[in-house]
């Protein structure tokens, strides 16, 4: 019944060293992804969309512009993966091509608005007499809701991808300029900038060597948010008929065309909506991740 303990039953704890070795820090690519999950997920999804956009000519199943009135408003099937629209065009192929327009608009607006905003913000932050004038103009432009500004510009130009990019860029510039000006004004108060001036650094060198590099971190975060917002504004403009011409398959256009049938054929709007939302989510995650890793004090706050 009762059994005596033998030596075999006694398990001796392994002798541990007095100081445990630190866990090997996560290094390399996997380590970076572990530490910044938001960046990894965002960048991963974005690369996937970029791949779809670039490889669209290889991935489509039915010519995205081919009309097939006999096969209109089909629900998703093996032949038409995402179904067809009211003109019988294949939604899957159109959505794949739509990725090109959205990404092109998002990236172009982010780059153009960043460059223009950076230039205006630098002048405003560095040149005292120009500052108050520029800031009044920026205040005025920021008083016009961005979508309405883009709508007004689009009403005066012919719908094209290029004009959509210009219209959204104009609407986004004030925000970037204001951010850069704020950063420049803070940097100007830094001792190292005073030291550089005391050492006889000329203004252009001061700007390019000491000020500009320090605006890059907040700028890159802002640029991702502009990219996300530009993709949404493009879809909205196309949706209300003030954007990309209807002949170009863009996510906004596909949804605009599905609008009249949304109660009976929701799939026409559903698929481009999913793709657009995932892409914008990816860019937003990337932006949040960048912000947290560039400014650890703000991490997990906002």
């Amino acid at each position, binding site marked *: 019944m009762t059994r005596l303990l033998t030596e075999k039953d006694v398990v001796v704890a392994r002798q541990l060293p007095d100081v445990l070795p630190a866990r090997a820090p996560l290094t390399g690519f996997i380590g970076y992804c572990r530490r910044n999950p938001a960046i990894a997920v965002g960048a991963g999804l974005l690369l996937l969309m970029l791949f779809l956009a670039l490889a669209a000519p290889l991935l489509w199943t039915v010519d995205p512009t081919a009309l097939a009135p006999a096969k209109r408003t089909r629900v998703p099937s093996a032949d038409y993966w995402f179904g067809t629209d009211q003109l019988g065009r294949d939604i899957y192929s159109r959505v794949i091509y739509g990725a090109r327009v959205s990404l092109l608009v998002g990236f172009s607006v982010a780059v153009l608005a960043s460059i223009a905003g950076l230039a205006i913000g630098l002048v405003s932050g560095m040149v005292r007499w120009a500052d108050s004038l520029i800031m*009044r*103009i920026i*205040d*005025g*432009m920021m*008083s*016009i*809701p*961005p*979508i*309405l*500004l883009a*709508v*007004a*510009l*689009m*009403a*005066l*130009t*012919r719908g094209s991808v290029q*004009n959509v990019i*210009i219209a959204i860029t104009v609407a986004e510039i004030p925000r970037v300029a204001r951010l850069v000006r704020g950063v420049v004004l803070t940097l100007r108060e830094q001792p190292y900038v005073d030291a550089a001036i005391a050492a006889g650094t000329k203004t252009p060198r001061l700007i390019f060597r000491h000020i500009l590099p320090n605006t890059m971190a907040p700028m890159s975060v802002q640029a991702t948010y502009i990219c*996300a917002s530009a993709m*949404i504004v493009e*879809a*909205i403009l196309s*949706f*209300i*008929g*003030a954007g990309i011409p209807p002949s170009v398959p863009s996510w906004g256009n596909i*949804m605009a065309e599905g609008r009249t049938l*949304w*109660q009976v054929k*929701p799939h026409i*709007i559903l698929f481009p*909506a999913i793709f*657009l*939302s995932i892409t*914008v*989510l990816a860019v*937003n*995650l990337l932006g*949040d991740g960048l912000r947290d890793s560039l400014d650890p004090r703000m991490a*997990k*706050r*906002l």
Partner: protein
Amino acid sequence: MFAFIVRRIIATIPVMAFVALFVFSLLYIAPGDPAAVIAGDQATPQDVERIRQGLGLDRPFLIRFGEWLFNVLRGDLGISIFTSLPVTQLIKQRIEPTVSLMAVTLVLAIGIAVPMGVIAAWKAGSWIDRLAMAVSVTGFSVPVFVVGYLLAYIFALQLDWLPVQGYTPLSQGVWPWFENLILPAITLGFVYIALIARITRASMLEVLQQDYIRTARSKGVSQPSILFVHALKNAAIPIVTVIGIGIALLIGGAVVTESVFAIPGLGRLTVDAILRRDYPVIQGVVLMFSFVYVLINLLVDLIYTLIDPRIRY
């Protein structure tokens, strides 16, 4: 206080003047020939010339701007090209649905977002916090019309709880009016809720770390009272600011939401004007919304002094 309000109102005049100048110059800044674009592809040269004269593009910029500004100050926003009615009259006809939609959205969004942000900050790091922040990121990523169709599909078509589309004036009863506005208001408010909740959480996290909160807790003040009275009051400035700035999102979103839910407001007016290339109407609506936006942010500045008596300009 009175002197401060007057000074603050006077300070908005240059901003409004610049908005007017900018909205007016769009006609001249836009690439290409606006008259030809507005006239459309089938227009004869005579049509283009008529529109050019109607818009005053054949006369010098400054003279034209002076006339236009004088008219705007008298409350005359020009004549619609398509309907030949005064733009002011068109705006008056459409203003009730839009104001209703925005008012309901504002109340609903603040009522949801502020408690959401406060609780997320209180339970920072917990699943409630993560859920609230996930909702917030989603809010920034899903376009407003997608939210609209999704809600309408679920709650109106499938569940049949609420009307699908349309608008009932307030004069026909409060409930029919409100019932029609629930789905549009949630749709329009989604991004706004995301924005306010985020800022509320960030601002509350900052305040909750302060010594006086610990003092209140050790005195035995109840948790809701600490959160919603002691802390929220001091976290309010950034929240009120973002509520004011976010009105721009509501104005832009209203254009789309009204199209989705077939609400005959200013947004519909704008969309119809785009399709008909009726520029004077677009110009009038943009100008009016911008002025409203400036006034709301003026109001926000005045609210600062009520929240924090230390603020004196």
